[in-house]
């Protein structure tokens, strides 16, 4: 259960975006969870909610979406989603693949609020 540490990282990144854009409050944080990120979405959600409840993540809401694992075959250049973590090209059977997405935890967007006027 390492999701508490990751929830902390999510909050720090979102708060950095808030500072960069001069917002007063982070309202919503949308995060993409890659299938191969090593992150369990439900646990990340509970961990974040715990941070928020204890005042360590402002009053922000976390929304999660899944990022499927996708790769490109270096032999035939086909792009496809990797099923059940089998790193083999379904077209030509080659195993030299580049992962295109789905390996990381991605901060997608942050909704900011500013008291009075445009941020």
């Amino acid at each position, binding site marked *: 259960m390492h999701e508490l540490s990751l929830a902390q990282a999510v909050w720090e990144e979102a708060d950095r975006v808030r500072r960069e854009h001069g917002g007063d409050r982070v309202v919503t944080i949308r995060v993409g969870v890659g299938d191969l990120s*090593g992150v369990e979405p439900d646990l990340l959600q509970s961990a974040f909610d715990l941070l928020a409840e204890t005042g360590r993540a402002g009053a922000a809401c976390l929304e999660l979406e899944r990022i499927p694992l996708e790769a490109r075959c270096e032999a035939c250049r086909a792009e496809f989603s990797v099923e059940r973590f*089998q790193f083999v090209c379904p077209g030509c059977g080659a195993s030299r693949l580049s992962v295109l997405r789905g390996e990381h935890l991605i901060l997608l967007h942050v909704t900011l609020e*500013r008291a009075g006027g445009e941020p």
Partner: protein
Amino acid sequence: MSARTVSVGRDVLAERRAAAERFRAAHARRGTLVVQLISSPGAGKTALLEATARHWESSRRLGVLVGDLETDRDRERLARHMPAVQITTGGACHLELPLVERALPGLGGRAFEFLFIEDVGNLVCPAAHDVGQHLRALLLSVTEGDDKPGKYPKAFRSSEVLVVTKLDLLPFVPFSLEAAAADARRIRPDLEVLSVNALAGAGIAAWCAYLDRRRQEILGGV
């Protein structure tokens, strides 16, 4: 009151990854290869390091940071062979770079050829954290079963070498080296697979030769 949505599209761990990159570069400049060992509890990480030190005797400068939830039992074992510092996580299931950086001065600032980071026994969480390693080695003991790679894709995908341990127990358990290697290579086709019996020293020379070779390749012969 007004609200607006900012698109970001950034890896949440980008900052941590950048810090790990700096750590790697600093150690590469000193000629130190940082090797992280991950496995489930009791797969033989500490035994492998003991055997590694015995094999090399004192011909390589070795240091180790060892993570556990509690106790300094592993440090006691390893300190007979090399400078060793225990990182007690107090319940956390994996090491992170700040813990590593905090513990490092305890090794006395020596320039090692190999700095080992023995992570907390766990095949899940350590796989998602960059602790500044150049090389991640995954240990799987034969008693755990040859069906494990497919169950822990992140750990196997992110490791460069699989070390199958406790080879002496092979006659007593239904474990196929070929099946384990094939399952792991479906997740990581270029995975190196070694096997050892650390207590008797079997396979340790090949493991040590692998470490020497990877150090040359990664650090460029410093």
